[in-house]
């Protein structure tokens, strides 16, 4: 075999590199997430909600928006107002202490909060300048993307 002294170490380095996630995390365990549960009971059992909340939310948004069915009658006969901001989050006061804990752990990024406003939100942040504009130092006013702070002046 030609270049044995280069090829073999090369293969070893490659295997180590490719297996990086395995040996780096070996023997360690990440503690399971502990979402903060509000007092009282949810619309369905904890086990059901844990396994099926996403299906339920998906059905809810179709029922509420498309069919006008705003009220959910749960398996024990209680009635609940359907809504994320006006339903779920009235008990689950803090998205970061409830939703995010498991979602971060499971590395899922639901896009609910692109539009829905988490209850802990106080204000929205001013518009961000794009990285490219910053890199070349182009002032915002030249792009026609003037922020609302400038608007307040006139």
């Amino acid at each position, binding site marked *: 075999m030609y270049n044995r002294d280069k090829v073999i170490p090369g293969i070893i380095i490659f295997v180590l590199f490719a297996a990086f996630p395995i040996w780096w995390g070996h023997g360690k365990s990440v503690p399971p997430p502990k979402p903060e549960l509000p007092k009282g009971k949810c619309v369905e059992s904890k086990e059901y909600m844990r396994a099926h909340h996403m299906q339920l939310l998906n059905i809810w948004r179709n029922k509420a928006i*498309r069919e006008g069915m705003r009220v959910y009658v749960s398996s024990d006969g209680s009635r609940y107002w359907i809504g994320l901001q006006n339903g779920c989050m009235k008990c689950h006061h803090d998205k970061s202490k409830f939703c995010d804990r498991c979602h971060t752990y499971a590395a899922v990024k639901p896009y609910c909060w692109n539009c829905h406003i988490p209850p802990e939100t106080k204000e929205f942040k001013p518009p961000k300048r794009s990285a490219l504009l910053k890199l070349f130092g182009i002032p915002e006013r030249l792009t026609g993307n003037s922020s609302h702070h400038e608007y307040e002046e006139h």
Partner: protein
Amino acid sequence: MKRRDLLKLAGLSAVVAGGVPGFLNKEVKAREYTPPPGALTAKRWGMAIDIRKCWEHPECRDCIKACHHIHNVPEIPEKKKEIKWIWKDEFEHAFPDQPNEFNDVLLQGKPFLLLCNHCEHPPCVRVCPTEATFKREDGIVMMDYHRCIGCRFCMAACPFGARSFNWVDPRPYIREFNPEFPTRMKGVVEKCLFCYERLEKGQIPACVEACKHKALIFGDLEDENSEISRVLRSRFSIRRKAELGTGPSVFYLIG
């Protein structure tokens, strides 16, 4: 392996591959959905705008402020990117089908209040590829923002310019938001929804409630005894671009 055994094995594998049969799955038993109690309902919601009352108070923007605050509509200074649910424009823009040089003079500087017309035959609904916009039984041309893919066919189809597109993230442009209502995100079309979320709670639309001069009348066009039907029977009214056949449900009382 015998042929018979192979077939048995294949059948068994098919059952296993097909997943656990539904009846073994522990699901929630009763799942029922009902419309909200106490909601305002109608056969065909409509609005009449007493534009003469509007003209008596040219500075008044109460309806616009109320609507835009309640629905988290951003104030984007740039005209090309602005979002509007209810707004004012002049006669020749609102009614371009009525060319009349004398009217133009007569009505110069007189604003018309414009919003989604909630048409009987909405062209925006016909073109929407995802059914994100659809017509409800009560006549409201509804939007399901979850489904909008931002193709803007509806904007091209709407003859009234009632739809706005979010070219940028609207959130930074909302000064005081209403935590009861969501915002929209970049890449989504939005418009007036006749306050479906208030009707569900038994409230009239925000603009109608906010108008202290009672220039906006909201009600059921198919109910003979509703205030709006009586007003429309007794006074002369016009609709925007009625000749297009979309059947607008917003009427302007001019007589």
